[in-house]
């Protein structure tokens, strides 16, 4: 069939931030949908958001309540949400209680009553809350099937987009005729994970539309339900072409070691044990970006933004002014029950708001701890999606990660995530001449050559300062317990610099 001959299905806004992206751009008009889930999972709130987003006086929404929560109590609670617009009641949104007819009569009478109200109001949206209680009375399978079929056909013919809300268990999916008839099936889950509650949404079925598969986390706040797509709202977005620009740290010797800086759009990992200066390096990276006109985001998990900015001041770096100027945002992502998708949403919002080019995640360990226990199991996978999404839009990410100092191995990260990063800078302690000194080495640069030197550095009131030339008088530096080689530098050469522009 010619594309032009096909019927165009309008997509209605769901009114739920993040959900339009998940359902493939909006909810199909005239579709017959089920919102299923356990009590308290957010079914009614989600339906209300859809109703408030779409109802008009010309094409109102009819909200049928049955047994269960009374309309008065429901409105009492729902009006606490910011999406609730009392001006829409009762002209655009009408609540009709069907309890009596449900209790006293059969399903035929219920259908008759719904038909009467729908015919009278000509609604664009119809909600039945809860449909489950409507069909709870004992009745034959045939009666039930006939009722569901009749309801679905009537409402679709009447050009209404419908939501039936019900407390269903997942094992009912197979045998219940309602799930066969439905065009869309939204399943809301909330599961305890140790001391946390994790809410997830799944579009089990959505006819005629390419929804994002999988489980998407959602949260209920004073703004109602907010969904976080697994694609972070970036699906369909064209990936930025690779850039050859180099971003500096503002530490001349380190920038030389990196072949002129890290490539724009790279993911950089700075790994080291406690006190090696990972955060200092990250702060210098952000501050240098701002001085070059590149707005930045710092996502911190272990300290408050104010403390982070104050610490930068001790290094001679001003993070207060760029925050006031809208060039820098320090995000403190509250350390409890986060999902990676929520964190991503906050970061992406900030990136888009200030046009950030550099992002610091300080630190991955803090990030992991901020997640609800249920999400920690998927940390690597989530991190992969996050880094891929952000670097895809041209953001250069620097993440810090704490590694345990070991004298028998040289780990890059405790998360086995080095494959997710383009560049790795490793900081570590070494024992030299009765002192615990610090050295750094560039382990990997995917986008080009880099120095192989192991360089000593100090943290001063100017930040990270690289000292002298490479430590060529010692053997076994990466072991942390080097041995003085007692021999002159055979090359007597200056610090090796990479051939910029060559690639691995």
């Amino acid at each position, binding site marked *: 069939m010619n594309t032009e001959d096909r019927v165009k299905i309008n997509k209605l806004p769901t009114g739920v931030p993040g959900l339009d992206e998940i359902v493939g751009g909006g909810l199909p008009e005239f579709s017959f949908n089920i919102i299923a889930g356990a009590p308290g999972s957010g079914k009614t709130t989600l339906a209300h958001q859809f109703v408030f987003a779409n109802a008009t006086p010309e094409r109102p929404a009819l909200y049928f309540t049955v047994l269960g929560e009374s309309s008065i109590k429901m409105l009492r609670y729902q009006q606490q949400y910011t999406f609730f617009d009392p001006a829409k*009641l009762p002209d655009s949104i009408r609540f009709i209680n069907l309890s*009596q007819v449900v209790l006293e009569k059969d399903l035929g009478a219920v259908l008759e009553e719904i038909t009467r109200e729908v015919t009278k109001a000509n609604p664009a949206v119809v909600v039945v809350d809860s449909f489950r209680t409507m069909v709870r009375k004992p009745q034959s399978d045939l009666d039930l099937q006939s009722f569901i079929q009749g309801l679905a056909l009537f409402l679709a013919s009447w050009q209404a987009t419908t939501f039936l809300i019900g407390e269903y268990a997942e094992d009912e999916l197979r045998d219940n005729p309602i799930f066969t008839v439905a065009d869309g099936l939204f399943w809301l889950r909330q599961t305890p994970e140790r001391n946390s509650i994790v809410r997830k949404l799944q579009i089990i079925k959505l006819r005629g539309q390419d929804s994002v598969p999988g489980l998407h986390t959602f949260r209920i706040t004073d703004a109602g339900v907010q969904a976080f797509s697994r694609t972070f709202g970036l699906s369909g977005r064209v990936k930025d072409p690779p850039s050859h620009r180099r971003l500096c740290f503002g530490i001349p010797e380190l920038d030389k070691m990196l072949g002129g800086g890290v490539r724009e759009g790279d993911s950089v990992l700075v790994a080291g044990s406690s006190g090696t200066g990972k955060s200092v390096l990250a702060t210098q990276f952000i501050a240098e970006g701002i001085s070059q006109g590149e707005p930045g985001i710092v996502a911190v998990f272990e300290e408050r933004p104010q403390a982070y900015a104050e610490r930068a001041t001790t290094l001679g770096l001003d993070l207060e002014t760029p925050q006031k100027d809208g060039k820098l945002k320090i995000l403190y992502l509250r350390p409890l029950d986060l999902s990676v998708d929520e964190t991503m949403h906050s970061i992406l919002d900030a990136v888009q708001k200030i046009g950030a080019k550099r992002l610091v995640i300080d630190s991955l360990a803090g990030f992991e701890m901020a997640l609800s226990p249920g999400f920690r199991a998927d940390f690597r996978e989530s991190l992969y999606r996050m880094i891929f999404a952000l670097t895809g839009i041209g953001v250069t990410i620097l993440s810090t990660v704490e590694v345990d100092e070991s004298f028998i191995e040289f780990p890059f990260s405790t998360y086995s995530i080095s494959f997710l990063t383009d560049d790795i800078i490793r900081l570590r302690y070494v024992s030299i001449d009765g002192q615990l000194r610090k050295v750094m080495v560039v382990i990997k640069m995917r986008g080009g050559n880099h120095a192989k030197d192991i360089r000593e550095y100090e943290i001063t009131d100017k930040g990270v300062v690289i000292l002298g030339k490479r430590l060529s008088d010692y053997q076994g530096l990466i072991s942390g317990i080097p041995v003085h080689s007692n021999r002159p530098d055979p090359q007597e050469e200056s610090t090796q610099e990479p051939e910029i522009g060559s690639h691995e």
Partner: protein
Amino acid sequence: MRDLARYLLAYEAVACKTSDPVESATLRVYEKLRQSLGAFAGVFGFQALAFRALTQAKSEAPGLWAVQIAADGSLQGLGEFEPQLVEFAPQLGSGKDQASEGGVILIARLLGLLLVFLGGTLTLRLVQSVWPDAAFDDCNSEIRRKA
């Protein structure tokens, strides 16, 4: 709430004269609220609300003792109450004005419960939808003050 209730009763009293003079203003106001709230909250939902309102009102207006809420939420015994109250008003030490205050109290209590549960804005919108031609400017400020 009493000002709003009084206003609604006065509004319906005028309407009574032109339509059904037999029916009392209180009953007309109550019935209109019952129809509207019943569709919205269900018969049982409205009945429960009305029963609570009547119980509260009886403590302020003992003359309402004979009034009851039927299972369908309708008001029973008001026909007896209003003439009685007016008839016995002198013995009770109250005038006719005070006697008619019973209806005001009942309606005010009902509206007051809506105010508690739904807040000022929704209560006013609900009342406005029942009496679309009435002017509620003064009542609006009263509801907002109480809310």
